[in-house]
C-alpha cells in the first residue's frame, strides 16, 4: 500500500471537466423552485435595465426638449416604481440564492463527511489526516462563489448574449459579422488558457493540501519537535512548502490573469472591424449613423456579458479542481461493507473460530498463513510473540477491520461477513494500542462506549478499571474537561479511561491489545480483578508482553511467521521448552 506523505502530491484520477461540472450543478436541481424564482426575478431585472434607457430617451426627446414638466415628472414616477420593485426583488433574489448556495455546501460537506465515515482503515492509513481535512473544509468552501454565480451570471448573461447577437444580425448581418469577427479568436485564446490554468490549479490545490498535512503533523508532534530541537528543520520544510504553494499559485495566475486580456484585445479588434466595415466597405451612405452608433452600443452590450462570462469561466476553472477532489473521495468505495442481505448478529455467546485464514495487507506479503483455531465461550486467550508477528492483525480480523483473503472467521458459528458490521462491533470491546480520547468531559468520554450510560454505570466501569480514584481527585471529577487526545492526563491514565470506556459497553468479547502496557503492575492487577468481576465468563483476547499479564490466560498462542507456533497454558508451554520458554527466560534473564 503506497503511503502518501506531506511531501508528495496526491494522485488524482482524471475526470472530464464537464462531468464534474454536471455533477456539481446537479446539487442545484434539488432547489429547482428557488432557482426558477431567481431566474424570473432576473428576467424582470433585465427588462427594467432595458426599459431604463428608453425612459431616459423619451424624457429627453418628448419632455425636456419640449419643456413638458408634468410629463417629465410622470416618467420619473414610473421609473421610480419600476426600480423600487426591482430593488425588493433583487433583495429576494440575493437571499434565495445565498440560501440555496449555503444549503448545497452544507449538503456536500455532510455527504462527504458521512461517506468518509464509511471508508475503511486502508483509506486512512494511506494518507495524512491534514489532506482529508483539506477536502472537507477548504475544497468545499472554494465552491461557494462558483455555485452562486452559475445561476446569477451564467444563465442571464448567456441569454443576453444570444439576444444581442440576434438583434444585430436582424438589423444588419454584414455589420454583425464584422463586429463578431474576433469571437473565434477569443474562443481559441480562452481555450488555450483554460487548458493550461486548469492543470495548474489542480497542482495548486495539491500543494495547498500538502501544506495542510504538514501543519497538521507538525502541530500534532510539536512536543517531539521541541524535544529534539527540530524547529529549524521543520521551519525550513514549512518554508519550502509555503514557497511551493505560492509558486504554484503564481504559475496558475500567470495564465488565469490573461483571461481578461484576451477578452480586452478581442473587444478592441471587434470595434475596429465594425467601424472599418461600416465606413469603408459598406460606405457611409449605405449605413446610417444611427445604425452604426446603435451597433456600437450593442457591441458594448455584447462584450459586458462576455467579460462576465469569461470571469465566471475563469472562476470555474480555478475552483473546479476543488470539486474534483471532493468527488474523488465520494467515488472511493468502502471495501468493508455489509453484504446484501446481512442479518443482525444475535447476542454473542463467545465461540470464535478461525478456519484456514490467510491475510495480507497489500497482496504481496502474507501476514497470516492458514491460521485455524477454535475458542470456547468464556476462554481467555493470550497472544504473544515478537513485534510485527501478526498479533494485532488477528484481533483486527475478529472485529472485521480488514477482510481476509482466504478462509472463514466465525463467531458462534456465524460467518462475520454475513452479519452487519455495526451489530458485530457493538458487541465487542476493543482496546487498541492508541487510545484516542475526544475533547469533552471524562463522563462523555466513558459514555462513548454506551451513549445512554447512566452515572452509576459510568462510575461502576471506572471503578472496575481502577480509574475512579484519580478521576475523583480531579477538581471537577467526572466533569473534568479533557483537552485534545486527553491532553493533561498521563498516558497510563488515558489508558485507564479508554479501558473504562470499553467496560461500560459491557462487551461480549473483550480484546485487549497491549491495553495495560502503560499501567503499573500494581494497578494492572487491580484492573484485572475489576474486569474479572464485571465481565465474568466472557471470551477475551489479550496481547501483552508483561508475563504477569499473560500467565493467567487459559491458553497462550505464540504467534510467529504468520501462524501459531505454539499453544497451551503457561505451565504446558514452559515444560515444552520451546518458543514461549525462550521469551519467558529472556525476561527473567536480566532481572534475576
Amino acid at each position, binding site marked *: 500500500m503506497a503511503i502518501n506523505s506531506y511531501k508528495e502530491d496526491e494522485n488524482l484520477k482524471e475526470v472530464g471537466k464537464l462531468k464534474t461540472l454536471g455533477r456539481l450543478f446537479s446539487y442545484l436541481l434539488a432547489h429547482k423552485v428557488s432557482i426558477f424564482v431567481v431566474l424570473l426575478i432576473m428576467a424582470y431585472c433585465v427588462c427594467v435595465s432595458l426599459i431604463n434607457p428608453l425612459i431616459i430617451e423619451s424624457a429627453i426627446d418628448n419632455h425636456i426638449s419640449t419643456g413638458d414638466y408634468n410629463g417629465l415628472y410622470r416618467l420619473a414616477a414610473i421609473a421610480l416604481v419600476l426600480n423600487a420593485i426591482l430593488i425588493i426583488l433583487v433583495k429576494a433574489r440575493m437571499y434565495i440564492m445565498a440560501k440555496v448556495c449555503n444549503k448545497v455546501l452544507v449538503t456536500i460537506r455532510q455527504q462527504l463527511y458521512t461517506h468518509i465515515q464509511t471508508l475503511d482503515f486502508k483509506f486512512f492509513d494511506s494518507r495524512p489526516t491534514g489532506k482529508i481535512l483539506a477536502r472537507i473544509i477548504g475544497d468545499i468552501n472554494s465552491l461557494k462563489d462558483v455555485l452562486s454565480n452559475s445561476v446569477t451570471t451564467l444563465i442571464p448573461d448567456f441569454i443576453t448574449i444570444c439576444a444581442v447577437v440576434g438583434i444585430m444580425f436582424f438589423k444588419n448581418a454584414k455589420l454583425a459579422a464584422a463586429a463578431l469577427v474576433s469571437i473565434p479568436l477569443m474562443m481559441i485564446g480562452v481555450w488555450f488558457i483554460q487548458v493550461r490554468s486548469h492543470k495548474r490549479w489542480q497542482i495548486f490545490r495539491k500543494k495547498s493540501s500538502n501544506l495542510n498535512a504538514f501543519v497538521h503533523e507538525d502541530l500534532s508532534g510539536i*512536543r517531539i519537535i521541541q524535544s529534539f530541537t527540530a*524547529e529549524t528543520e521543520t521551519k525550513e520544510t514549512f518554508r519550502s512548502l509555503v514557497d511551493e504553494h505560492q509558486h504554484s499559485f503564481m504559475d496558475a495566475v500567470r495564465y488565469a490573469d490573461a483571461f481578461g486580456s484576451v477578452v480586452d484585445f478581442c473587444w478592441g479588434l471587434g470595434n475596429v472591424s465594425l467601424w472599418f466595415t461600416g465606413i469603408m466597405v459598406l460606405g457611409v451612405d449605405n449605413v446610417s449613423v444611427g445604425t452604426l452608433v446603435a451597433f*456600437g452600443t450593442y457591441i458594448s452590450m455584447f462584450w459586458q456579458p462576455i467579460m462576465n462570462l469569461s470571469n465566471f469561466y475563469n472562476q470555474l476553472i480555478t475552483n473546479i479542481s476543488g470539486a474534483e477532489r471532493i468527488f474523488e473521495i465520494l467515488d472511493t468505495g468502502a471495501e468493508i461493507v455489509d453484504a446484501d442481505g446481512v442479518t443482525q448478529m444475535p447476542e454473542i455467546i463467545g465461540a470464535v473460530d478461525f478456519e484456514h485464514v490467510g491475510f495480507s495487507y497489500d497482496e504481496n506479503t502474507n501476514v497470516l498463513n492458514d491460521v485455524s483455531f477454535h475458542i470456547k465461550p468464556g476462554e481467555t486467550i493470550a497472544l504473544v510473540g515478537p513485534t510485527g508477528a501478526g498479533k494485532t492483525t488477528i484481533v483486527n480480523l475478529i472485529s472485521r477491520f480488514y477482510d481476509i483473503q482466504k478462509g472463514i472467521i466465525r463467531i458462534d458459528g456465524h460467518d462475520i461477513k454475513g452479519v452487519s458490521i455495526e451489530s458485530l462491533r457493538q458487541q465487542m470491546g476493543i482496546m487498541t494500542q492508541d487510545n484516542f480520547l475526544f475533547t469533552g468531559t471524562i463522563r462523555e468520554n466513558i459514555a462513548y462506549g454506551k451513549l445512554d450510560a447512566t452515572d452509576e454505570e459510568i462510575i461502576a466501569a471506572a471503578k472496575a478499571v481502577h480509574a475512579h480514584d484519580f478521576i475523583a481527585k480531579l477538581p471537577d471529577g467526572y466533569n473534568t474537561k479533557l*483537552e485534545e487526545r486527553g491532553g493533561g492526563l498521563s498516558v497510563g491514565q488515558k489508558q485507564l479511561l479508554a479501558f473504562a470506556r470499553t467496560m461500560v459497553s459491557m462487551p461480549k468479547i473483550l480484546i485487549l491489545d497491549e491495553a495495560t502496557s502503560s499501567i503499573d503492575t500494581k494497578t494492572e492487577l487491580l484492573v484485572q480483578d475489576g474486569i474479572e468481576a464485571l465481565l465474568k465468563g466472557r471470551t477475551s483476547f489479550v496481547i501483552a508482553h508483561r508475563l504477569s499479564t499473560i500467565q493467567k490466560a487459559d491458553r497462550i498462542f505464540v504467534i510467529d511467521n504468520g501462524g501459531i507456533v505454539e499453544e497451551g497454558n503457561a505451565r504446558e508451554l514452559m515444560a515444552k521448552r520451546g518458543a514461549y520458554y*525462550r521469551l519467558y527466560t529472556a*525476561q527473567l534473564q*536480566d532481572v534475576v
Partner: protein
Amino acid sequence: MRKKLSTYIWEYKWHYLFAITSLIISVSLDMLAPMLTMHIIDDVILGGNLAILPYLLGGILIVGVGRCIFQYTKEYTFDKVGSSIASDMRKNLFDHIQGLSSSFFDKTNTGELMARVKDDIDRVWDTLSYVSMLIIEVIFHTCIVLFCMYRLHAPLAVIPTIAMFISAFIAVSMEHRLGSIYEDISEENAALNTVAEENLAGVRTVKAFAREKFEINKFLSHNQRYYELNMRQSKVFVRYYPYLQIITKLLPMTILLLGGRLVIQGTITLGVLGAFLEYSNNIVWPMEMLGWLSNGFSAGIASNKKLVKIYAQKPAITEAKHPAILDKVQGKIEFSHVSFHKEDMHEILHDITFEADAGSTIGIMGATGAGKTSVIQLLQRLYDATDGCIRLDGVDIRELSLKQLRSSISIVMQDVFLFSDTINENVKLGKRDYINEAIVRKASRDAQASSFIEKMPDEYETVIGERGVGLSGGQKQRISIARALAKHTPILIMDDSTSALDMETEHEIQKTLNALPDTTKLIIAHRISAVRHADEIIVLENGSIAERGTHDTLLAKKGLYYTTYVSQYGEPSDISITTASEEGGAYHGN
C-alpha cells in the same frame, strides 16, 4: 514576532506602486475609448474626414492592446503581492506558533490552529490582493468621473458627489456589522476543523465502537451552525446591499430630473445633460461594487483579528537574556527540592531531590499518574518547575540556552510520534544535516529495528504513515528508540519506551543501553527488567519519592518495589539470586 499588516504592505511598496500605475493606465485607457468613438462619429461620419479614420481605428486597437497589457500586469502584480505577503505571514505565524510552550498546546486544538494558518491567512490574502485592487480601482475611477462632471457643470455634479458619500457611508456601516459575524464564522470554521480533525485522528476508536452515526451527528450540528452563520452574513448583506442599488438607480433619474429642469430653463444644453447621464452610468458600477468590497474587506479584518490573538500568546518558557553555553555537556543532572503544578491544578511533583552523575543510570518507577513523565518534562524545560532547582552540569537549566539544553537530551516518548516521512528522515529528526546513512543504520541496529526495516521494500526510504500508521506498536517504539540513539547525546531518556516490545527484543536493547558508558540515562518503566541495572531506582508515589535505592536494597526493603517485583516474577526466595540464571536455565517461579 508579529509584524503589522502595514509593515508587510510597506515591504512591497514598489510592487504596489507598479500595480497601481498599471491600474491607473488601464482605467485611463478605458476612459479614452468613448472619446475615440465620438471622433469617429463626429469627424469621420458626419464630417466626412476619411483620412483620419485609420488613425482613430489604430487608436481603438491600441487602447485594446494597452488595456490587454496593463490589465494583465495589474492583476498579476496584485496576485504576486498578495500571495507574497500571505506566504510571509504564514511563515511568520508558523514560527510564532512553533515557539510557543507546551502549556499553550495543552489547551489549544490542532484543528483550530490549522484553520488560522490556512484559512484565516487566505482571507487576509484575498483582502490584500483583489479586494484592495478593486478598492483602489473604484476610488480612482470615481475621482476621474467626478472630476469630469465638475468640469462640465459644478452644481449638477454635487448630486453624484452626495450619492457617493452616502454609498460610502452604507458600505462602512455594513463593514462594521459584518465584522463581528465574520469573526464568528472564522471561529466556527475553526470548530468545524477541530471536530473533523479529531474524528479523522480517532477514526480507529470511532470504528471500534461503531460510532459512525454519532460522529456524523456531531459534525452535522457544527455544519448546521456554520450554515446559520453564513446565512446571517447573507442577511446583513442583503439588508444593506439594496440601499446601494437604490442609490445607483436613483442617481441617473435625479440627474435627469434636475438636469432636465436646467435644460428647460436653458441653463445647460441637451448635450451637457447627455454627457452627464453617460458619466453617471459610469459611476454606477463602482458604487455597486462598494458592497462586495466592504464584504471582502470585513472578512479579511476579522481573520486578521484572529491572527492577532494568536500573536498575543507569549511562550511561557523563555531563555535567560544572556544564556550560559556549556563547552561540553557532561550529563550530570541534579534535581533539588523540585515541586511542580500546572496553573491552578493540584501538585504533580513535590520536593523531588536526586542526582545523576554523568554516565549513570536512574530508574524511575511508580503508579500511573505518579508524576514520572513530569520529571522528564521539567528536565527538558517543556514546563518550568514551580519550586526548587534543576541543574545540568551544575548550572541551573533556566540559565542555559534552551537549544543546548534540549539538544543534549534525546528522548523516547511514551506516546510514540512518527512523521509521515521516510524512516530515514524520522531517525534523523533534529539533526538532519549531521546524521548520515551509516549512523541511521547503526542506530536502527542498536534499537533492534534494522531487521524489520530491511525487510521492507524500500528499506530506510520507506514512507511510513502519519503517527507511524501501518507499523505495529513495537515497530514504532523501536524506530523512536533508533531516533534517540542516533543523536548520541549526553543524556538519554526512555519514558516507558519498551512497553510494546517482546522480552527478547527488550533484552537486546537493554544490552545496547548498558554499553553506553558516557550517557546519563533516565529510564521510566513498569517492568523491573528495564530498571534492574540502574545505579539508583526512584519509586514515585503521588508526586513524592516514596522509595529509593538499588535493585538489591529495594528488594531487601520489602516496600513498593518489592511488591511490584513479586507480582511480576513471584517471590524472590523462589529464585536464587545468583549468576546461575544468566545461563538462561533457571526458572523457578510459579
